[in-house]
């Protein structure tokens, strides 16, 4: 079958609704009698909750109810663990401490919910929150990762004897032995700080309990509607079919909307059922900075051993990972960091040890990149240091260490975030880097342009950073494909969608099989009433896992269609072709039958059908990869820095991605562009500033700086395609690829621009102020 649609720049099915304000987001849900919720949140990061007086709030006109932990009685229980600690890996210590619906006894981070007000509208609800008198006894806050582990540090969780949440040791080969062989051993301390996902749409949830039908409908800004349904049913003592969770249009996810259960997801459905009234809670931007999960905080003490000719003999990475006040998401992030600290390089000896630390800060769960940028930052910073020490060109030292094409599948012998062995399934790395070098004109820049610019007194630098991205992890997703009586196609799948264009790429996959127009394929994703098996959209897995499940279902339906059509047209199946919504005989185009007719024939209203046949032209299929597909890419950048003001302008930005089969280049480019802007934010603009008392000092878009159109460069995107052998479509994920290498690349390019200052950057994010401090310190010696 020749590809007609896959790989084409097909316009998106979902756009007309989004462009005209007709697409429904959670805050757009209106129900008669809808009530509105607002939460009282802690001003303190760490405190004992001594008393709570909600009487004034309850009396305020327009207030329907005020609930505290106490009011929830026996229904008060912590959220479930999202990810359990790795069962397989040995040397694992893990203390599971999960977020609570409403704080009881103790506050563990600023912004933790203490009480909820339900009122006629949000304005009144917020008035009433100010009526609540809360008596908090402040405790010393646990903020710094290292001090948190010192004996005598205050404890985030009093029942533990330290703030150590988890400890995980992994090794490959024998680092210590390799170190002895080394000509050069470099040790560095690398510090990476926190950022926010800052999706444009804040979180929100609407819960509607219908007493008569005993049915609960929930609209939730979640990346994982099915687990939310199952968990909610269990908590409220309902059968799963009594709960329907809808993730409608979602205004960006980027990871935190995968986290569950958020306290609000525990409280709002409970309150709706208790009050028998529909309730809406919409997070405001300030809450989003406190109550929505964040990521990136790690401190690495790392050591690399190399031979004189720049070959990496071994790598040792001991690091701390900040998980915030609770750790419902297990070890996903630090495992990703461990798996990416070797980058795309052939490293035989690797030792890695992570200590996960509880702090009095907002919870940490994956944010676009999910531990991968930290791993890539570590190895790439070390290689830049090594290339200077050894006098080997930064490109050359990377080339010498990249995994060769004939080494795939390449087994690392450690476990990945899904607890399966880390195996790089396929790839051809060096050509990807070569292409990036050509696109940005590396040779010419180094040879001609940079020296000329330097003579004009301008500080312009270049960098290139290769990286891997583990994607498309299990366990599985599923889908149901149906040819409807109209001849149009209906597809239901479980993953939520947050702007990735699933309505289009999935439709392309189906249309490819069934020979219909992409616009004739209607996708429903993220509605448990339509499909209720699956996990969610995360880890760049939508197109890989759900995409392949849809493909598998479409293939079965195609078979059914051909079977029936060959009877009707009495022609062997191999002489039939599907096109334009019809099945026709290849060489006699006028002998054909429409999918609509076939759909009706397959679902007759009268008469007998052959025993054992299934009605309809429909199939449900599932896909679960043996292990995740690993994508590869290289980014290159030219930037100019004004060494007086530290203002930076990115002059060129090039990315080359190998994410296997490309379903839709238009959408792929969009994913890359967005990923890069996210990464540029991580590298230079975005940092969550917590003070020594755990107060977040920049909980607004005025102080938390996400890149705007005037900061973003044009991004030139190139492709190389190495199909993944792990799935039919040959796809690998790309959702996080744009973000992963940027901070490392940015640091490399700045060092290159300021070569004569011999600056070494070992931290992220940067800022003009920080660069000024680093350079001043350097000059002071």
């Amino acid at each position, binding site marked *: 079958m020749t590809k007609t649609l896959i790989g084409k720049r097909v316009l998106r099915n979902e756009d007309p609704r989004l462009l*005209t304000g007709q697409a429904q987001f959670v805050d757009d849900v209106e129900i008669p009698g809808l009530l509105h919720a607002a939460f009282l949140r802690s001003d303190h990061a760490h405190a004992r909750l001594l008393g709570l007086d909600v009487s004034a709030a309850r009396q305020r006109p327009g207030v329907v109810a005020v609930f505290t932990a106490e009011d929830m009685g026996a229904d008060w229980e912590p959220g479930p663990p999202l990810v359990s600690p790795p069962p397989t890996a040995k040397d694992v210590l893990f203390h599971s401490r999960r977020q609570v619906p409403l704080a009881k006894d103790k506050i563990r981070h600023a912004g933790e919910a203490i009480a909820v007000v339900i009122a006629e509208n949000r304005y009144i609800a917020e008035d009433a929150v100010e009526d609540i008198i809360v008596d908090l006894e402040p405790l010393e806050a646990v903020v710094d990762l290292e001090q948190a582990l010192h004996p005598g540090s205050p404890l985030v969780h009093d029942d533990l004897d330290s703030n150590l949440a988890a400890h995980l040791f992994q090794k490959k080969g024998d680092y210590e032995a390799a170190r002895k062989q080394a000509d050069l051993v470099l040790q560095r301390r690398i510090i990476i700080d926190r950022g926010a996902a800052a999706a444009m749409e804040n979180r929100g949830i609407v819960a509607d309990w219908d007493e008569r039908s005993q049915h609960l409908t929930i609209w939730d800004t979640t990346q994982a509607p099915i687990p939310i349904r199952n968990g909610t049913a269990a908590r409220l003592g309902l059968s799963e079919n009594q709960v329907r969770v809808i993730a409608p249009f979602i205004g960006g996810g980027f990871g935190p909307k995968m986290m569950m259960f958020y306290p609000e997801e525990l409280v709002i459905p409970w309150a709706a059922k208790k009050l028998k009234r529909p309730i809406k809670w919409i997070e405001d931007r300030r809450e989003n900075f406190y109550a929505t999960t964040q990521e990136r905080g790690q401190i690495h003490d790392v050591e690399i051993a190399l031979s004189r000719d720049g070959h990496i003999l071994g790598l040792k990475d001991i690091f701390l990972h900040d998980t915030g006040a609770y750790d419902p998401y297990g070890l996903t992030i630090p495992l990703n960091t461990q798996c990416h600290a070797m980058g795309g390089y052939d490293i035989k000896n690797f030792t890695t040890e992570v200590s996960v630390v509880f702090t009095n800060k907002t919870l940490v769960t994956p944010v676009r990149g999910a531990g991968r940028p930290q791993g890539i930052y570590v190895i790439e910073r070390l290689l830049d240091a090594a290339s200077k020490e050894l006098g080997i060109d930064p490109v050359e030292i990377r080339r010498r260490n990249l995994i060769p094409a004939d080494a795939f599948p390449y087994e690392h012998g450690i476990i990945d975030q899904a607890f399966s062995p880390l195996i790089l399934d396929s790839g051809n790395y060096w050509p990807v880097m070569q292409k990036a070098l050509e696109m940005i004109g590396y040779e010419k820049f180094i040879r001609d342009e940079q020296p000329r610019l330097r003579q004009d007194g301008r500080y312009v630098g270049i960098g290139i950073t290769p990286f891997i991205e583990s994607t498309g992890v299990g366990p599985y997703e599923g889908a149901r494909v149906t040819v409807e009586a109209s001849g149009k196609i209906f597809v239901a799948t479980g993953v939520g969608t947050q702007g990735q264009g699933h309505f289009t790429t999935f439709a392309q996959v189906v249309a490819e099989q069934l020979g219909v127009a992409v616009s004739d394929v209607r996708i429903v994703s993220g509605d448990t009433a339509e499909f209720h098996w699956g996990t969610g959209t995360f880890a760049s897995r939508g197109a890989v896992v759900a995409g392949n499940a849809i493909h598998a279902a479409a293939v079965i339906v195609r078979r059914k269609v051909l079977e029936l059509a060959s009877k009707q047209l009495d022609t062997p199946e191999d002489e039939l072709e599907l096109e334009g919504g019809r099945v026709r005989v290849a060489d006699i185009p006028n002998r054909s039958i429409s999918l609509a007719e076939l759909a009706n024939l397959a679902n007759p209203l009268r008469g007998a059908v052959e025993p054992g046949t299934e009605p309809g032209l429909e199939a449900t299929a599932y896909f679960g990869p043996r292990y995740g597909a690993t994508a590869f890419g290289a980014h290159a950048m030219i930037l100019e820095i004004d060494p007086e003001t530290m203002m930076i302008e990115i002059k060129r930005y090039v990315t080359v991605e190998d994410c296997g089969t490309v379903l839709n280049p238009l959408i792929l480019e969009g994913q890359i562009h967005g990923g890069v802007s996210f990464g540029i934010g991580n590298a230079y603009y975005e940092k969550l500033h917590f003070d020594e008392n755990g107060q977040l000092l920049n909980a607004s878009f005025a102080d938390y700086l996400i890149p705007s*159109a005037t900061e973003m460069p044009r991004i030139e995107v190139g492709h190389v395609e190495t199909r993944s052998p792990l799935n039919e479509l040959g796809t690998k994920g790309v959702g996080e690829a744009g973000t992963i290498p940027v901070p490392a690349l940015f640091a490399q390019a700045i060092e290159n621009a300021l070569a004569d200052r011999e600056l070494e950057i070992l931290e992220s994010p940067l800022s003009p102020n920080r660069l000024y401090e680093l350079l001043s310190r350097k000059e002071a010696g």
Partner: protein
Amino acid sequence: MPKLFDLALTVNGTRFEQAVEPRTLLSDFLRHDLGLTGTHVACEHGVCGACTVLLDGEPVRSCLVFAVQAHGHSVTTVEGLGSIEQLHPVQEAFRQAHGVQCGFCTPGILTTVVAFLDDNPDPSEEEIREALSGNLCRCTGYQHIVDAVQLAAKNIKTAHQQPAR
């Protein structure tokens, strides 16, 4: 309890009269009182631009204007630009150039761009980026949005050049 204010205004060409609390933000009035949920709210402190609407043709943050201030004025929201059947040229260009991903910031960007192209029908890329600098988008990296604005400008110009029948 402050007294209600009898508000009368025109939204997308239709006149509305309603009593509102003075503190009601225009964004909330449009979304919740009029059910025009195309206007999105993302920061409520005037930085992100998602709630941008046209007030007497001027692009303004509807989260920084009280509904009562629109009394006797005319407001245009994304719903007033075009329909699914008949997209506004700017909306069509955003579709063609893939200037939309999650679509949450899009309505505010569309209203901003419509006003911008009225003032400056033939903008440079730099001018376009400046015009977009008050609208945050987390998905696109802005590149396809900039492309979309360029395409819209081109299409609108050629449309004007068509000889009138």
